């Protein structure tokens, strides 16, 4: 590690192609040769060391418990040569071979090499984050035991898997950890990550070095390397391919020879990379040429020298400021909290919101996700996530909401909880570098939060309060901020990863409150050099027409240097203040965003007060009532005179969501809720269903009608709840896409329709094991279960599920559907019903619950 910092390191080059050249047959896992052909591995390592490499990489890229059996497993004997060896044997021999080469060469370090697992992590695949950590942990323990000098995680393209690997390394050994990722030609990771989001994540996890490898040749890598070096505070490693691969007589060859490769590498050396090596297609000859090209000391610049190099490099982002950037990330790009004000959406929070609290209590993810996505549309850059409701398991709920949100939005999240256990678990599963809300000046708080930030990385909101409360003066708040900053430094948490919250108390109790907050914001920036955040709307608590005060205060705070504000992006006044400020302060080039946002600024965004009398919170209807297109162009109006008897029926038939909500509200003024459902909504739904079956109306229209009906139902349900408690559903149906199948759009369509017909649907999702289906059916005492499978290969899994259901829940009826299903298939695997499409599933349910079947 010291050598990397002080003098830089030369890494080795490609391994796989060298093994193939020495006779590794296609289809055999290269790691098997660690045991069967150790002399080949030792020879290759030694060639690299003689060529000038300081670090050799063990042949463990693909060594993981998914490819090699564990100690306890007995060989099955049928799976080929890899089955003959355990993971421990493969890893241990790999390290031993490298150690042997190092001792023969008399110098060098041994890197335990970790690549992607080849498995898919949630939410795309079926591997859980913790299982992924555990898989890497095994390899790391074996490698460390065998005597590796460092851990090199490389060719990663999924930041979540990368996080799992780094955590596993940190938790299972004391060796230095280095991690490099594979960018494509567009400068992005396959999952959308960018150089700065990689740096933010990896430095948050405190790797010792980071960088890039594979994918591209040196020239094509230069731009990404430059950006990485600009943002990184730790040494950067660059290991490109020998140019681009091409196919020659069935063999992959790379087009850069040793000299050309070395020539291209010079620009990367000049940028200040501290670790150099090669990846696919590079050979000892490449490494020798590279190593020889380094005049003594070339990779050995002192810090001043390094800085100079960075200054000289053309078109480089301002290195000093890039390294000081406050970055929060998701799996995709980073959000920088800096001069341009950042909006943090505050709506995922049960405080004072009855409907939201109910959603948390019922684990109604759809509602919660919609609150998040709505704010994204309205312009939030980051979403605050608070699910603190008394009586729930907050760690479980927070991690679940975080995972679900990250499966549908690329916005970074602000984890908002006062429960340290919930925070710890959420930070662990979070994909990226989160905002953490919050720590304060109490010793207890700092003792709980800072170790988590030191471990997982994050930017922390620091509240200016401590054991003696909230100081009344700016002096007092600055003093607490200082104390927090000093304590953070003891954990190695830098200023750039802190956001001071000056706190704002309502001006309704003391008219000086706003000025104290604003002074604290300004002085935090000027005296402490730390960025600031504020929950703006507290300022007007207890006052009428709060939006007026909030918006003016927001503008004042931004003018005093506020970097991030926690606000409701659905508030027109706040968004007006935001856009106007950006326009006036030169943050909006050519005022493009201001002009593009005009419709929203004028009228489409209603102030919350106008949505509903009273609480000002958007109810279910308000939330779902405004569809995405509707926010840009209004729906066609319900024409006068057409179907005057029931505008609601018309709206459902035509799939007009906003109109359906309005019509339902109108109808409630004149009719009983149940009568509306029976006389207007159900006939409309039936008509749509018949049209679909006849082929006069198609899936998109069926879905639009279903959505319109759903929005109208929400209005009616809310009304019923006010009157007589919850509306009764017709019964419970469990739905699942069977194990092994990851396509569940068909099942989701069925779910929407069944809900329309007033069934309570327990949706288990996709890739659901038979046991989980049985468990849900038994727990819910569901009379009907629906299973879907898209692939012929997963039909056996469906059959297995049915068999288990028959055993443990004999009363349940089972309907099946999916692309490959037929009546014959359904009969053969013992299902009760075959639903040929979504309407078929509804017919089937209606039959079962009416007792017809």
């Amino acid at each position: 590690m010291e050598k990397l910092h002080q003098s830089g390191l030369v890494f080795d080059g490609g391994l796989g192609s060298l093994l193939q050249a020495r006779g590794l047959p296609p289809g055999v896992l290269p790691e098997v040769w660690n045991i069967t052909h150790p002399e080949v591995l030792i020879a290759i390592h030694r060639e690299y060391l003689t060529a000038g490499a300081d670090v050799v990489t063990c042949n463990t890229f693909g060594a993981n418990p998914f490819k090699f059996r564990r100690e306890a497993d007995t060989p099955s004997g049928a799976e080929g040569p890899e089955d003959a060896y355990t993971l421990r044997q493969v890893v241990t021999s790999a390290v031993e071979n490298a150690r042997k080469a190092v001792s023969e060469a008399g110098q060098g370090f041994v890197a335990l090499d970790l690549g992607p697992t080849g498995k898919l992590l949630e939410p795309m695949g079926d591997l859980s984050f913790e299982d992924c950590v555990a898989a890497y942990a095994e390899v790391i323990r074996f490698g460390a035991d065998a005597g590796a000098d460092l851990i090199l995680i490389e060719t990663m393209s999924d930041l979540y898997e990368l996080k799992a690997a780094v955590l596993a390394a940190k938790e299972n050994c004391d060796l230095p950890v280095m991690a490099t990722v594979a960018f494509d030609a567009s400068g992005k990771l396959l999952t959308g990550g960018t150089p700065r989001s990689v740096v933010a994540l990896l430095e948050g996890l405190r790797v010792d070095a980071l960088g890039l490898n594979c994918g591209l040749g040196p020239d094509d890598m230069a731009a990404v390397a430059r950006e990485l070096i600009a943002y990184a505070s730790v040494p950067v490693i660059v290991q490109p391919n020998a140019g681009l691969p091409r196919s020659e007589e069935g063999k992959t060859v790379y087009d850069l020879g040793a000299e050309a490769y070395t020539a291209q590498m010079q620009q990367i050396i000049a940028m200040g990379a501290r670790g150099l090596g090669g990846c696919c297609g590079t050979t000892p000859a490449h490494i020798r040429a590279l190593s020889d090209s380094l005049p003594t000391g070339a990779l050995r610049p002192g810090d001043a020298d390094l800085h100079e190099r960075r200054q000289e490099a053309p078109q480089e982002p301002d290195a000093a400021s890039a390294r000081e950037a406050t970055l929060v990330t998701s799996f995709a790009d980073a959000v920088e909290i800096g001069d341009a004000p950042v909006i943090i959406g505050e709506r995922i929070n049960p405080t004072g919101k009855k409907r939201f609290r109910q959603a948390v209590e019922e684990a109604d993810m759809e509602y919660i996700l919609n609150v998040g996505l709505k704010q994204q549309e309205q312009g939030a850059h980051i979403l605050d996530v608070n699910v603190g409701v008394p009586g729930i398991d907050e760690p479980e709920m927070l991690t679940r909401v975080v995972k679900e949100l990250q499966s549908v939005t690329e916005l970074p999240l602000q984890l908002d909880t006062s429960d340290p256990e919930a925070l710890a678990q959420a930070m662990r599963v979070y994909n990226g570098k989160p905002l953490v809300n919050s720590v304060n000046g109490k010793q207890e708080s700092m003792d709980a939060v800072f170790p988590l930030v030191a471990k997982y990385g994050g930017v922390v909101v620091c509240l200016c309060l401590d054991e003696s409360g909230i100081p009344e003066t700016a002096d007092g708040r600055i003093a607490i901020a200082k104390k927090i900053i000093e304590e953070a430094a003891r954990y190695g948490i830098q200023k750039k990863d802190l956001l001071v919250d000056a706190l704002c108390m309502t001006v309704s109790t003391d008219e000086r409150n706003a000025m104290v907050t604003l002074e604290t914001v300004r002085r935090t920036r000027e005296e402490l050099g730390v960025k600031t955040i504020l929950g703006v709307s507290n300022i007007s608590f207890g006052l009428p027409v709060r939006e007026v005060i909030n918006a003016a205060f927001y503008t004042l705070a931004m003018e005093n240097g506020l970097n991030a504000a926690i606000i409701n992006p659905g508030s027109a006044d706040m968004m007006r203040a935001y856009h106007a400020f950006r326009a006036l302060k030169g943050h909006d080039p050519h005022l493009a965003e201001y002009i593009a946002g005009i419709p929203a600024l004028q009228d489409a965004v209603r102030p919350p007060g106008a949505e509903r009398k009273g609480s000002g919170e958007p109810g279910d209807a308000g939330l779902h009532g405004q569809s995405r297109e509707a926010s840009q162009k209004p729906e066609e109006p319900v024409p006068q005179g057409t179907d005057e008897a029931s505008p609601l029926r018309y709206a459902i038939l035509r799939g007009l969501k906003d109109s359906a909500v309005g019509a339902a509200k109108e109808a409630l003024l004149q009719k009983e809720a149940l009568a509306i459902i029976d006389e207007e909504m159900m006939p409309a739904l039936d008509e749509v269903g018949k049209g679909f079956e006849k082929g006069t109306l198609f899936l998109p229209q069926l879905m639009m009608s279903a959505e319109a009906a759903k929005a109208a139902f929400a209005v009616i349900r809310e009304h019923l709840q006010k009157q007589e408690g919850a509306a009764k559903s017709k019964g419970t149906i469990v739905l699942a896409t069977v194990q092994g199948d990851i396509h569940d759009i068909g099942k989701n369509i069925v779910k929407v329709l069944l809900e329309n017909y007033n069934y309570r649907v327990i949706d288990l999702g996709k890739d659901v094991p038979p046991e989980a289906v049985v468990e849900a059916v038994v727990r819910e005492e569901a009379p009907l279960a629906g299973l879907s499978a898209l692939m012929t290969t997963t039909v056996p899994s469906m059959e297995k599920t049915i068999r288990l259901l028959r055993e443990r829940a004999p009363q349940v009826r089972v309907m099946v559907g999916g692309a490959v299903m037929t009546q014959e298939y359904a009969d053969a695997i013992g299902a009760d019903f075959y639903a040929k499409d979504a309407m078929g599933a509804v017919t089937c349910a209606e039959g079962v619950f009416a007792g017809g079947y």
Partner: protein
Amino acid sequence: MAMDLNRVNRNEILHYLGMHGAAPDERTAALIEECLSELNAKVAPKHVFRTFPLHVSLPEEDEAPLLDLGCFTVRSRDLARNLKGCHEVLLFAATIGEGADFLIRRYEKTQMSRAVILQAAAAAMIEAYCNEINDAWKEEYAAKGCALHPRYSCGYGDFALEYQKEFMRVLEMEKRLGIRLTDGLLMVPTKSVTAVIGIAGEEM
């Protein structure tokens, strides 16, 4: 990164939506265009390919012919029929990336009507992308006096899905395209295609 949306076959989208031959209503048609634009901002079409010499061993009685694709061997009657007269094969993998799956997943949670259209539009997009690269190869090989056979994927006929693993290995699909396989041999990102294309005609 984006695709030329004119190349995406609208009829194919309608077909995937179950509207066989029926004209879409105005709103659906507009939604389809909206979805295509939204997808286009998120997709990242990419492909890899390699060519190999092809050797076919004549079958024993009752056996499917054995095809040596230069990187793995396959026993398949249907593929042999498709590759009849070819001396070389081109193996390729293509994807429009995870962005499409992400959008579909998002709208499944919020607006199902849009999710079904996105699903159909994305399927037509990967198809259009495959056609685009296929057309370029056709031209390239025509110049050399060769003809390309229609592409053929594993999972068709008796060309078992199991061979997806060989495509993964030979084309380094994980490293170069970010494609991974589920235990059920499905590709993720889901809007991905692998196929064999036979090359017939003049030997180069």
